[in-house]
């Protein structure tokens, strides 16, 4: 039996639909994320589930009983739910112990029992030693743990989480993600998790509802949402770097479907064909994830799409390379950073590589570039160990320097630039 059910739920403010007739069902014990950009209605949906806002249309049910409807709602304090707020909302006038004990005391539990359960709970979130601290004396991560403890110590039927990790730094976020998952697995509490962070949603949820403009775009398992996005929006919202999208025609040839676009003729197979509802001859959009593009900087199969490298971003464990092809820009993802170096990029661009290491060398390099036949790729190298400037400033400075270099060049189309081997920027 479904645990929580939203049927045709809307929230309207004047003419604006914050939430526009959404349907959503959660199984008991499920972990579901509401994922979407800011302003998509995910928090409003959560607040309606909590009872802080009433729907203007539709009903919210729990085990078949109406919780919210335009005609009236069960107030939040009677819903047997818990919530972790974006601001944590830890009461600063109470100690950690008092914060966690609050919900239990409301349930008229005996003092000894309260103490025992608070103790156990604080143990679980590793906060026992800080029980008598006030929230102002805690770090962000510790406050987050208190919020988690306070919310689950009452053993709620449902736990609502409103972007609980958005105020934490990256390391802590990963740790808390794990912590919340663990609590979910151990307690079996139904969880509704609101986030704009696709990594959080993908890594934690059993199902994700992707929202946009007050509507649910797709509600499915994370891998299904990633592999088989139901709309252009979902396809481009999920995944970083973003999916490559190409317009083309669906053509049937020798019993197989092909995607045909300038320079491309791609036979479609397997699950892709099974899910395709469009008939042959339709205009379709093809989505290709960057990691599904196989990049050959040199050589490669004869029917490969040929392109010119325009942007290289080294992220450490992987490198994002963007190429310009007849089909349009193609973004690819390559593991590690070894395959990409300046000389290779220059060759991939079909250009001669030149380096500028000091501003004084500018003039010399320009003359050299102009004397070289064919396109030239100039690399502005900045010593990464130079102390006073932070890397970003350094990169910007180098870019600036490189740009002014290009501006002073009479033959402008000829020179492309790359900065510190990290970024290639073409100036035409």
């Amino acid at each position: 039996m479904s645990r929580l059910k939203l049927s045709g739920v809307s929230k309207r403010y004047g003419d604006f639909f914050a939430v526009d007739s959404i349907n959503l069902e959660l199984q008991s014990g499920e972990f579901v994320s509401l994922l979407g950009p800011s302003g998509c209605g995910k928090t409003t949906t959560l607040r309606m589930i909590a009872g802080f806002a009433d729907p203007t249309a539709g009903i919210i049910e729990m085990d078949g009983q109406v919780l919210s409807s335009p005609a009236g709602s069960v107030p939040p304090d009677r819903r047997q739910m818990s919530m972790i707020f974006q601001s944590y909302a830890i009461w600063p006038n109470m100690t950690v112990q008092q914060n966690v004990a609050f919900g239990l005391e409301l349930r008229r539990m005996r003092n000894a029992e309260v103490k025992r359960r608070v103790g156990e709970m604080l143990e679980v979130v590793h906060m026992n030693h800080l029980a008598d601290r006030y929230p102002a004396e805690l770090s962000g991560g510790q406050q987050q743990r208190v919020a988690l403890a306070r919310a689950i110590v009452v053993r709620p039927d449902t736990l609502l989480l409103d972007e609980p990790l958005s105020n934490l730094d990256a390391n802590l976020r990963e740790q808390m993600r794990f912590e919340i998952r663990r609590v979910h697995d151990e307690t079996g509490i139904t969880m509704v998790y609101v986030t704009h962070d696709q990594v959080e949603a993908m890594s934690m949820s059993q199902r994700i509802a992707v929202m946009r403009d007050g509507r649910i775009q797709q509600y499915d398992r994370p891998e299904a949402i990633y592999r088989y996005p139901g709309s252009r929006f979902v396809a481009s919202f999920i995944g970083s770097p973003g999916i490559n999208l190409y317009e083309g025609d669906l053509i049937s040839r020798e019993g197989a479907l092909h995607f045909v676009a300038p320079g491309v003729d791609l036979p479609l197979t397997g699950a892709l064909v099974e899910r395709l509802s469009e008939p042959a001859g339709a205009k379709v959009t093809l989505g290709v994830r960057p990691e599904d593009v196989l990049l050959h900087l040199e050589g490669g199969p004869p029917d490969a799409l040929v392109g010119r490298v325009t942007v290289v971003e080294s992220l450490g464990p992987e490198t994002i390379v963007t190429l310009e092809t007849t089909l349009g820009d193609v973004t690819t993802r390559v593991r590690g950073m070894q395959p990409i170096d300046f000389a290779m990029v220059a060759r991939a661009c079909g250009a001669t590589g030149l380096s500028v290491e000091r501003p004084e060398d500018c003039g010399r390099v320009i003359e050299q570039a102009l004397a070289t036949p064919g396109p030239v790729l100039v690399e502005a190298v900045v010593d990464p160990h130079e102390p006073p400037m932070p890397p970003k400033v350094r990169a910007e400075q180098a870019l600036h320097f490189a740009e002014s270099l290009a501006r002073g060049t009479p033959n402008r189309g000829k020179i492309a630039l790359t900065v510190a081997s990290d970024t290639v920027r073409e100036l035409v």
Partner: protein
Amino acid sequence: MTNKSLDDRALQFSGVASRLRRLDASILLWLALIAVLAFLVLNPILRLIVSSLQETDTGNFTFANYRVAYGNVRHLQALANSLELGVGVALLATLFAVPIAWAISRTDMPAKAFVRLMVFAAFVTPPYLGAIGWILLAGPNSGWLNKVWMALTGAEHGIFNIYSMTGLILVVAVTSFPYTFVFTSSALDLVSSEMEDAANILGARTLRTTLRITLPLVAPAIIGGIIISFLEAIALFGAPALIALPARFNVVSTQLWQFFEYPVRVEEAAAYSMPLLAITVLMFWLQRSLLGRKGYTSVTGKGGERRMIALGAWRWAMFGYALFVCALSVFLPMLVLLQAAFAKAWGRGFSIDNLTFHNFYYLLVEQTQAKQAIFNTFVYSAVTAFAAISLSLAIAYVVSRKLVPWSNVLAFLCVAPFVVPGIVLAIGFYAAYAPPPLALYGTATILILGFTTRFLPIAYTSSAAGLRSINPEMEEAVRILGGGRLLAIRKVLIPLLKKSLAGAWILVFIPATRELSSAIFLVGPNTRVISVMLFDLSEEGNFEVLSALGVILLIATVAIAGIGSKMIGRDFMLRRDS
């Protein structure tokens, strides 16, 4: 936690009936609050306007009151005088305030904390006490400054005469310049040094930068301060009554008061108060649109790093000027006031044989009226502060949580008294509640109600600011764990608001203890407060006892303000809430 009970409740709440019940509750709450506000704010203002158009006995519609009010050259002269006073004060206050604000905010002038403290002292000094101090200083011939002048030059007569328009402008300006100061310095605090650096790097010197960049940036704030001190000056009753009346000229407020001399002519007073009301409303609107349009939007933007301008030797000149203004506003008047409070006869000067505690003894032991007035003042002010803050907190809560429809109407009514001069409000209260059926004239109730209305805007802005600083999620966390709204308010909201409520309480209490302009129209024989008694004593010319009473009021005020600063942080009163 059992599903059955949850189901029951869900059913219970899912019907149309519950929807109506809930709507009912919120409408009842709205009606209750609007009724209170109608009684406190709307009715007195409406009654003021209505009664200005009514015949005294019959209540028939008439313009006669306006004919009487404006058909007299003396009355028109008083209007002109008020405008002159307002403009003079606004300009002089700017001259006092802006250089000091600039020096404190932007330069390395010495002893800034001290100067700031003195501005604060000028702020908490009731203007009528300043006026009394200045009467002792610059009364013709007998005033201290005149005596010093005569002793130095051997002249027959003194050169200062406080009983003049110039004297009145000076007295009001020295007590109201802190308004302009607060406006200017809060704006200056937001101008980042980078803006000045940008001008410097283009070759402008410090003086040029200040005049061309810094001051224009804060100009809207200065104009705002000018408008406030102008309005302050034209609405003032105490200082003009002490100075203008003996000087034989009237301003609007003293003229209004004369309408209340026997036989009381409320309708004419109401008609006569209209320009004051209109000017105030208009000027506040002007000020809002000025500050709203470009004032702080251009100035905010994070302030940035601020470095102090090194003035070199000029820092001492600047400090001298600050001391001069402080002398005019605090040192000199307070010195002579203290001297008079402890003197047998103030004119006999500073000597041991002139020293006495009798004035205090007389007030606190021998005489009963003063004790009563002191008691009344503090009780009324305390009750007023509680009432204004309870009401405004309730309304601010309802407004911020959108518990009722049309909640903005409530907020608007709460801050509306801000644009009504105290003296005009008092006439409205008199017109509305002095006659039967309520017949509240001379009761403590009408005073407390009047004060509550008068200070409702202060209470509301502080309560609303306090509430805004608390994330609603704090309460929602209580609700979702199973606590009701009242529990959330009691366990979380009130404890978190404690500090700002205490601050708001003091912000209402202090002006209430010194409120004269509305009190003078509403007191009866048994409800006199210190400010009114001070005024009566001045009419008797008993400056020694008067000064002693003034000192008592000042000590109490300073003590409360001191406690406030300790609790809530230094100079909490000099902050500008917008």
